């Protein structure tokens, strides 16, 4: 559950860093940035778009894959890499990364409506690592 917030916040931190601001995790601000159409929820399309941006910005050497170090920099969660590296080749492809994010999205969608509200995202973040719901 914590991962989805970290995914969003990781992207926010990268964006803030690029803009010269002090990067810090802010689930609500990250949510607002991910909610591209500003309808108040993050849908599947926005999730995949966000995951792709996170992957791209995290891929420092732009070789098309995330190493463990690159992925840790993006999602700030030690268990993410092993979980995402489905074929155990010590690198995570975009499809592997996106799949991992989809699983997290569905876990975070506590009311099962197919979209994430800011309450679901910030709630997951507030509960911290290891929380299941």
């Amino acid at each position, binding site marked *: 559950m914590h991962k989805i917030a970290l995914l969003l916040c990781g992207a926010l931190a990268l964006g803030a860093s690029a803009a010269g601001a002090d990067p810090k995790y802010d689930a609500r601000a990250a949510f607002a940035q991910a909610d591209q159409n500003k309808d108040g929820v993050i849908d599947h*399309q926005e999730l*995949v*778009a966000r995951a792709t*941006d996170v992957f*791209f*910005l995290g891929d420092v050497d732009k070789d*098309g894959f995330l190493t463990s170090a690159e992925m840790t920099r993006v999602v700030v969660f030690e268990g993410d890499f092993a979980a995402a590296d489905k074929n155990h080749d010590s690198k995570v492809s*975009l499809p592997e990364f996106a799949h991992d994010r*989809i699983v997290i999205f569905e876990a975070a969608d506590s009311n099962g409506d197919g979209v994430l509200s800011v309450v679901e995202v910030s709630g997951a973040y507030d509960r911290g690592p290891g929380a299941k719901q």
Partner: protein
Amino acid sequence: MSRSAAAKLAPFVLALFVFSGCASLQQEWEENPKAVLGTVIGVAAGAGIAAAAGGGAGWIVGGAALGGLLGGAVGHGLDERDKRLAHQAAVNAFENYPSGQSSVWNNPDNGHSGSITPTQTYQIASGQYCRRYTQTIDIGGTPQQSAGTACRQSDGTWKIQS
């Protein structure tokens, strides 16, 4: 329908399929992961972009040619410093900014300004990254807007595709 027309429609058809709603995204992934990723990998990027990314006509951002980025009406009226600033802003946006975040430039010598905003990131089959973008250039208080796609080359430069 011609093959080219089908290729142009493919991204939209896939997008409709992927995000049609009823099944969960996880379920859709289990059944057809390529379709789920259609908007972020080459499947939905369009055959034209995929082909152009590997070669053919284009303009390199990071090299000397900027016509693809600032060509036509959009680039008309820009001086050399404007173009250099626009170029730097574009490279910074393509390389470092998440979609939706604008990289801006301003030339205090003549008051010209502009911004470029990545709007979508995707990966083509070769693993190469491409980014769609929108651009606004303001010359004398008249904003001119354009949009296009840039793909990252193996040498780190960005080639404008459209």
